[in-house]
């Protein structure tokens, strides 16, 4: 039987939504900035490893924002997956095989599996109950990491992990230097960003955005809300695991501190201050802002987190759209002024 939705009216081209760019312009700018960081960071008094750390946190924040900003699912224990990725990388390297790709894969897979288990328990919840359950699971993972001394090394964690070479078959790249590792992490960041870009503009991404806005309506349009919420949690956990594995490689160790509630809160602050709730690029801005604030403010005062906390409060109170929102408003004002003078 034909339904109403079977008929069609040709919509004028100008009324159609604009398709997403295959490669977004801000990503090209990001590659240009981070790709040359090994050169300009020392010139401004910073160090190449800072670029590595910023890029890793950007990977983590991009994956996290799929959950918080895009899907409206507040996970406050996401550090668990970052840590599980780090431990997965370390354990695979120490006990299975010292191969970069397999060890990174182990970190991602471990985090995704842990994410799947957590998602199975929490995806039928919403709001505060969802958030509290993520904290509870995060604390469980953190506690296990500290107490399972024989396998995970207790509070010290896994030490002396190697920065393994990237073997591409036709060529092998040594990643021992920070400059080489920065290039490698930048490639990972580009791939993760493109993946997140595609996801957010896909049917799946649109379904998630609708669930964020109105879960009941989405359910009564026939969407399997539980499945959507669970799957994006697993994807986000897997990306956090990749970031954790890269972090273990950068730090040459995996330790439980990154799984603490405090550390889990950092990625939330990055995303919110950056403007992840309103902009795809918010997590990139937020991660860079946080790490730079830590290093630049930290050079002057030990209480840098106090000042950063004040910034966070100011953003939440006065500009919940974050830094990306401030930039967006400034660009809109500039365009309006140009239009008036033209």
């Amino acid at each position, binding site marked *: 039987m034909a339904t*109403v939705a079977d008929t069609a009216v040709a919509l004028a081209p100008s009324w159609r*939504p604009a398709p997403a760019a295959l490669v977004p312009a801000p990503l090209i700018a990001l590659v240009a900035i981070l790709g040359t960081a090994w050169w300009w960071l020392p010139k401004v008094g910073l160090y190449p490893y800072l670029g590595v750390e910023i890029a890793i946190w950007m990977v983590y924040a991009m994956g996290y924002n799929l959950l918080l900003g895009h899907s409206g699912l507040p996970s406050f224990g996401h550090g668990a997956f970052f840590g599980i990725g780090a431990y997965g990388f370390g354990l695979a390297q120490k006990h299975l095989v010292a191969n970069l790709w397999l060890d990174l894969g182990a970190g991602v897979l471990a985090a995704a599996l842990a994410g799947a288990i957590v998602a199975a328990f929490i995806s039928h919840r919403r709001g505060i109950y969802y958030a509290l359950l993520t904290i509870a699971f995060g604390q469980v993972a953190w506690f296990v990491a500290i107490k399972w001394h024989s396998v995970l090394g207790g509070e010290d964690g896994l030490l002396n992990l190697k920065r393994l070479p990237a073997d591409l078959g036709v060529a092998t790249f040594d990643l021992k230097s920070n400059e080489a590792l920065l290039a490698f992490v930048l490639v990972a960041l580009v791939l993760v960003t493109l993946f997140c870009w595609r996801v957010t503009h*896909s049917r799946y991404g649109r379904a998630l955005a609708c669930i964020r806005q109105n879960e009941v309506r989405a359910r009564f349009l026939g969407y399997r809300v539980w499945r959507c919420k669970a799957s994006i949690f697993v994807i986000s956990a897997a990306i956090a695991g990749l970031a954790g594995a890269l972090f273990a490689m950068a730090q040459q160790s995996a330790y439980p501190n990154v799984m603490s509630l405090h550390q889990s809160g950092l990625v939330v602050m990055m995303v919110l201050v950056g403007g992840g709730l309103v902009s795809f690029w918010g997590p990139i801005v937020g991660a860079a802002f946080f790490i730079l604030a830590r290093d630049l403010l930290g050079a002057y005062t030990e209480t840098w987190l106090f000042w950063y906390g004040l910034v966070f409060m100011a953003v939440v109170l006065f500009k919940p759209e974050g830094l990306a929102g401030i930039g967006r408003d400034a660009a809109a004002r500039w365009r309006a002024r140009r239009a008036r003078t033209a």
Partner: protein
Amino acid sequence: MALFEARGLHKRFGDRVVLESVDLAFEAGTLTGIMGPNGAGKTTCFHCLTGFHRADRGRIVFDGEDIGALPPHEIVARGVARSFQSINLFDADTVLDNVVIALPEVRKRAGNAWGDLARDSGAQDRAAAVLARVGLAGRERAKAKDLAYGERRALEIALALASGPRILFLDEPTSGLGPDGTARLAELVAELKRTLTLVVIEHDMRFLFGLADTIAVIHWGQVIAGGTPRELRDNPWVARSALAEEPC
């Protein structure tokens, strides 16, 4: 056999019995009105029929299949759609995007995490057709939150229509509308009636008596009367409860 039937529905919340032995049958191609005073159990009945609540007892049969234990997404996939008493839209999205996401072809491929939905011109054209049908042509690019109240009501119906239903449940569609809006909605519902089976909860008796083929009256969680609008006008139960005063 009716397209959609409910037999012996019971629903209670704690100690409060909200529905008791409710029997309803909706014939294909008809418009059935459900009326009754506030708190009578009409919306709870809708919630049970569409999977929002699960009835404690009773059977719900759609096209020969018992759907009483199915989750909402399974019920929608079989061709049952609904609107809500309080408007439920994706407010941050454009009118067109609201309807595109409701289309079955988009829903069925909701696992596709790669293809750009904005490049699906076929879905946009079908969404535009739905919008034209509810009188929202030309409003495709407006944000749902920026629509006037009557337009939001129309969009709510458009979302339900876009999901490709065979039976459409409308929960108080004239709620909050003025006389002009109600008149436009009556035209739309009359037009939908030609192709769909409709079930409408409504307080506006003029609206309901003008459009319905049959009406069921729910009071105290039970169906206390049923029949054609003409039969109901003469029903002493309905007359006594002043439910049918306005159109008589």
